């Protein structure tokens, strides 16, 4: 695909192998992908398809074995405040209150005291946790922690938001609530979001495009654009049609992969 204009994040012929002892695992085969400005793109696939590995390359936590990952056409060499990350395990600092966590980013700290307060207040408002500003993370429910985690990432004014299965550890109902919230936040901020999930419905609810991945070696099978207005109704026939198509592509990818008990 290469560096397309308007592309915020680009993976350009990236591949990644892990070597443990004499065994080489192809986590990602040569892959290219572009995430456009203001777009919500999901990486969808079964466990072991390399979707988190790809996200870690964008985050700068990991380096590709070959190819390049770019943000605004500049090569990514390590983690940085221009790419906010929301982790599966909230990863909040337990010794900081909700307010302090949201204001923990280096870019926030660079602001004046009044500026910091304004940023933190706005983000807490956005995720609906203003009343919990003085709580410590351990006093919050899983869903609330993840909202704080989103607020912390957004407060640091990143160029893009990388979300690594952020709702996977939540119960089904909380998960639906947070999906709704994320749609609302995305509509309000028009943030460029790369979202990793193994939940088909979640991907269809949230995404402008879904990159369906298949395992062994991890590769992008097909990128599916969803042209439905958000928020979406999961009961509508259009939604179901998209979901069916995504499911088909996903299963084709799994069936095509070499047989392995882990994917059955």
């Amino acid at each position, binding site marked *: 695909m290469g560096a397309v204009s308007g592309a915020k994040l680009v993976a350009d012929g990236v591949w990644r192998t892990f070597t443990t002892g004499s065994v080489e695992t192809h986590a990602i085969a040569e892959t290219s992908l572009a995430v456009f400005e203001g777009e919500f793109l999901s990486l969808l696939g079964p466990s072991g398809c390399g979707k988190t590995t790809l996200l870690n390359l964008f*985050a*700068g*936590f990991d380096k590709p074995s070959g190819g390049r990952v770019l943000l605004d056409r500049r090569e990514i060499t*390590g*983690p*940085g*405040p221009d*790419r*906010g*990350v929301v*982790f599966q*395990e909230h*990863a*909040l*600092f*337990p*010794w*900081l*209150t909700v307010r302090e966590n949201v204001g*923990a*980013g*280096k*870019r926030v700290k660079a602001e004046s005291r009044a500026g910091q307060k304004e940023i933190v207040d706005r983000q807490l408002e956005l995720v609906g946790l203003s009343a919990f500003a003085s709580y*410590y993370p*351990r*006093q919050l*429910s899983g869903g609330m922690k993840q909202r704080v985690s989103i607020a*912390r*990432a957004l407060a*640091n004014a990143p160029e893009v938001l990388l979300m690594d299965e952020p709702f996977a550890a939540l119960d089904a109902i909380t998960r639906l609530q947070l999906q709704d919230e994320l749609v609302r936040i995305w509509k309000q901020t028009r943030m460029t979001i790369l979202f990793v999930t193994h939940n088909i419905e979640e991907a269809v609810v949230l995404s402008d495009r879904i990159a369906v991945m298949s395992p062994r070696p991890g590769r992008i099978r097909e990128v599916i654009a969803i042209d439905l207005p958000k928020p979406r109704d999961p009961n509508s026939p259009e939604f179901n049609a998209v979901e069916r198509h995504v499911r088909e592509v996903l299963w084709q990818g799994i069936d095509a992969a070499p047989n392995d008990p882990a994917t059955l």
Partner: protein
Amino acid sequence: MIVSGEKVESQVVPVGKVSGTKRPTIGFPYFLIAPISIMIAWETVSRLHLMPTLLFPSLETIVLTTLDTLTGFWGTTQWYSGALLTHASASLLRVATGFAIGGSLGVAVGILAGLSDRMCRTIDPTLQFLRPVPITAWIPLAVAWFGIHERPAIFLIALGTFFATYLNARHGVKYVDPVLVRAARMLGYNTRWEVLRTVVIWSALPNIFTGLRIGLGLAWMCVVAAEMLAVKSGLGYMLWDAYNFLRIDLIITGMISIALLGYLSDRVLLLFQRIVLKWEQ
């Protein structure tokens, strides 16, 4: 050290109900059963002369001896009459000095060894090799080097404190949750020093406090051992001196004093820990 979350979320349960069930009830003072039983047994042995009175002085004698060492009113404890606080503060000062030196060195070296693999491989094997040597085994060397004086005592206390704080600080730093380090790095804290300052120190703090509390306990052991052989003042010295004159009452006074000081100093440290680690409450 992590206190599990007992707090019930206010959203889930009406607040009034929670505070109603949490009201402390005045319970039976179970903790008094053991000491009172021991005292009754002791007094029985003493009064019925089941053992020589010399070895089991009556509780009354022990109480009077303790009061005399505190006030000097009766003069029954000769040169220890009214001298308990002097000896206690001598021991306390040694513990405080040795603990401050050993504790801060232990935390500093522990953090370094936890941060750098190379540093750990350089110093850890030597320290692990020296650690099993009991503090009492260091006494001859300490006295030979420093003489009968404050310095060998403080050296021994610092040494004892050092190993405990070193081990715990190193462990705390080494096993910092890597996800938290990633979180700090994505927030813009990328240099080693920034990661140390924003994440590592904080997540190691509970372990560091555990080490300090163990270290303080060891410091009291060390001070008594050191004072028995290496100094001529303090509660340890008083204990050994009392043994030489077979004043069991005075020995008991000394032991209770050490227990009390050890307990109280631990409470002070615990209070400090609660203030610093306020997110764990």
